[in-house]
């Protein structure tokens, strides 16, 4: 570990720590924060990281590798199967038409058909990293646009495999291609052999996932050493990446495949929680390096050309995406979100473009230019989405609020309900059934349209935005129900509301016990764990099915509920003794263990002698009570 390594690490981490909170604060999202941090420390501005940026980019690509591993892990075959129409349909339309458009354009500029086709394929890719991160941060992952985005991205990510395999064939057919020295193992082989080798490597990953990795993980798990398991998880990801690199295939794709193969194994969740933190930080690093790699001198030399190129790419891509969205019947708002969200060129384009350059399909000059355009288009995405959210949608899409006739007095409801998902909707419907109208805040335009049709007063947009909260009457309301599905956004809402509208009583939906602890730390007590009451009700019914009298069982349930809430308060106070500010999986298990021990010691139903005429009597005594 030498000085430059530490120095570089400090620069990258420091830039992230400085820029990301600012970007978040300004409502721009963390991705843009990372990108700006990269631009700032890049060679053009501060020059803190210079020519070695490429090494770092290489290292940071590991964030993308891990992200794809995790995406793969989440893709259970059954889930994949359910989405197959969307993935194939939307994916093919988008990738196909976009490629054709760029193919036509670049042939017109004088590219050979092989090069134009290859460039078209590369530019049709969108950035999974940016889109998924952004959607998750905005809590839009579950909307129709979110689902369609995911499907299209998945199709693109998978199609990179055959594209990479096919590129050598294109190069073979290309007049410019020459068998040159290459860095990969297969460099010297003819195109067809390379293709076969790539497919062979993919097969190897799939087979070893089935027959080597799972037994290996089983063996490691039996050691009961947590860190060994983490090490194994990292080993699997890196080994796959290395293998892929050896045969000249993208490491990210290899690990994606490995993830898919492991999605059905019993270790899926453990792998997920082990890789997640690494992914987060490396993905951030990746965004920074993308920012740092933007070649501003290139832009300054030919500003108009580059800007035209970027605009052209984004315009073509978003038009095709709009068409794709139309085809999958997205509503206007959702379609706009989908189209602008995916309008950038993605990280896989870096891989494809540099591979093309190696194959001499693409000149150095064009490779640089296109890579620059890719990075710029990625940086533009968060800005485009911001523009969409603040300017386009309010004007042309579902309005943030429905204007009433001028003479109608705009009454503010005493209750504001943020988040009308499965949880919030039940609360809202219950209140409405009892004559209490709540002002609803939601960011799913489809849902908002429906609710408005049903006569609800709905504000459309990001509930953490202060102007929307104010418009919804947060200053006059009595109660704010924070029921947003994403715990992060919900917490942000609670924090902001408490700060800006201290008179509001905030009632919070918490995802689970650990989520609830976070809220308790900030002093709120009206916390409703979505997993508590229902679970107990189910437990009560289990007792009933086992032959318990229904009343005794529900009494036991009531007592348990009280006991659990009390235990929660007690543990919350204890929590800081252990310096455990952030819950990871291990601490959660510790708490679970503590709970189970306490339960055994203090059975809340044990001392229930209600209706028991004489608690001192032996059970065998015949009593009439």
């Amino acid at each position, binding site marked *: 570990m030498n000085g430059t390594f530490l120095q570089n690490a400090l620069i990258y981490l420091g830039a992230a720590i400085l820029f990301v909170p600012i970007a978040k604060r300004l409502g721009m999202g963390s991705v843009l924060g990372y990108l700006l941090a990269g631009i700032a420390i890049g060679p053009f501005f501060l020059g803190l990281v210079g020519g070695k940026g490429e090494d770092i980019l290489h290292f940071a690509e590991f964030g993308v590798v891990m992200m794809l591993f995790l995406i793969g892990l989440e893709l259970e075959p059954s889930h994949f199967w359910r989405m197959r129409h969307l993935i194939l349909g939307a994916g093919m339309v988008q990738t196909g038409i976009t490629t054709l458009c760029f193919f036509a354009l670049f042939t017109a500029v004088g590219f050979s058909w092989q090069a134009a086709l290859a460039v078209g394929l590369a530019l049709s890719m969108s950035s999974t990293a940016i889109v998924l991160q952004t959607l998750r941060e905005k809590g839009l992952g579950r909307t129709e646009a979110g689902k369609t985005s995911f499907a299209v991205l998945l199709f693109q990510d998978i199609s990179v495999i055959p594209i990479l395999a096919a590129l050598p064939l294109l190069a073979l057919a290309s007049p410019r291609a020459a068998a040159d020295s290459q860095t990969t193992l297969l460099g010297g082989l003819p195109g067809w052999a390379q293709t076969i080798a790539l497919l062979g490597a993919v097969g190897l990953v799939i087979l070893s996932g089935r027959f080597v990795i799972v037994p290996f993980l089983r063996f490691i798990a039996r050691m009961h050493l947590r860190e060994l398991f983490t090490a194994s998880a990292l080993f699997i990801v890196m080994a796959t990446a290395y293998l892929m690199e050896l045969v000249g295939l993208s490491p990210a794709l290899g690990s994606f495949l490995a993830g898919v193969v492991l999605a059905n194994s019993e270790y899926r969740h453990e792998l997920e929680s082990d890789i997640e933190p690494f992914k987060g930080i490396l993905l951030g690093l990746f965004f920074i390096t993308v920012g740092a790699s933007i070649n501003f001198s290139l832009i300054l030399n030919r500003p108009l050309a580059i800007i035209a190129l970027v605009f052209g790419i984004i315009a073509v891509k978003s038009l095709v995406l709009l068409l794709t969205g139309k085809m999958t019947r997205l509503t206007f708002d959702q379609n706009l979100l989908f189209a602008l969200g995916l309008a950038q060129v993605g990280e896989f384009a870096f891989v494809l473009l540099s591979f093309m350059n190696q194959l001499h399909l693409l000149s150095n000059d064009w490779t640089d230019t296109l890579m620059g355009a890719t990075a710029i288009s990625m940086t533009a995405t968060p800005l485009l989405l911001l523009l969409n959210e603040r300017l386009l949608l309010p004007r042309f899409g579902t309005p943030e609020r429905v204007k009433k006739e001028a003479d109608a007095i705009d009454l503010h409801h005493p209750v504001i309900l943020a988040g009308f998902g499965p949880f919030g909707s039940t609360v809202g419907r219950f209140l409405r059934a009892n004559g209490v109208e709540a002002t609803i805040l939601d960011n799913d335009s489809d849902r908002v349209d429906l609710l408005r049709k049903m006569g609800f007063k709905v504000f459309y947009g990001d509930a953490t935005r202060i102007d929307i909260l104010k418009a919804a009457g947060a200053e006059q309301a009595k109660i704010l129900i924070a029921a947003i599905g994403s715990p992060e956004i919900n917490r942000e809402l609670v924090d902001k509301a408490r700060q800006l509208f201290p008179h509001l009583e905030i009632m919070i939906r918490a995802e689970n016990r650990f989520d609830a602890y976070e809220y308790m730390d900030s002093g709120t007590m009206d916390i409703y764990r979505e997993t508590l009451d229902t679970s107990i009700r189910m437990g009560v019914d289990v007792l009933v099915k086992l032959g318990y009298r229904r009343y005794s069982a529900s*009494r036991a349930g*009531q*007592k348990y509920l009280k006991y659990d809430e009390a235990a929660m308060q007690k543990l919350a106070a204890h929590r800081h003794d252990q310096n455990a500010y952030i819950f990871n999986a291990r601490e959660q298990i510790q708490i679970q263990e503590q709970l189970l021990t306490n339960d055994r010691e203090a059975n809340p139903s044990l001392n229930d*002698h209600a*209706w028991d005429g*004489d608690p*001192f009597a032996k059970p065998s005594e015949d009593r009439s009570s």
Partner: protein
Amino acid sequence: MNPILILFAHPLFEKSRVNRALLSGVDQLPGVTLHDLYEHYPDFNVDIGKEQTLIAAHQIIIWHHPLYMYGAPALLKQWIDLVLEFGWAHGRGGDSLKGKIAFNTLTAGGSREVYATPGHNRFTLREFLAPFEQTAALCRMMYLPPFAVHGTHLLTEAQLKHHAALYRALLERLSEGSFGPETMRRFPLLNDWLEHAPGEP
């Protein structure tokens, strides 16, 4: 001073004009604790320990409720069944309530006349309250006649005000200790004691 605990049980308090009048401002009287059972235990899951602590801190217990089908609303019965435990309120070692005073305050739709042997309801109010009286006896408490507001549907505002004032006066006198249980017991209702022996202890 005798601390008074009003155990109030009404499942639909918000719609009871009479009880709102009777109870308005009562919890501000010194030494009076108003304990709204349906507000505390909407799920009927009475906290036995908490209730026993509460009783221990008071000298006079009032079961305040409407008369439903000649008895108390279900939650008050639940409270009695759960809180007045064997070994605490009665039976072996159960003398926590010994020497305390208990009575019922109730509101009834029927007029005073129908609660009589020849009347429509065939029994007197006091007879309907026999389970309370015996419960008090079992727990070695002193049981007093009830305070009752009859014919609640027909009360005029003025009559209602009168009853409320009377109840307030009762609470004040009980709290101050200006009463003699023996005298009180000679009257069928505490209302009569208040009307006929205003100054007398």
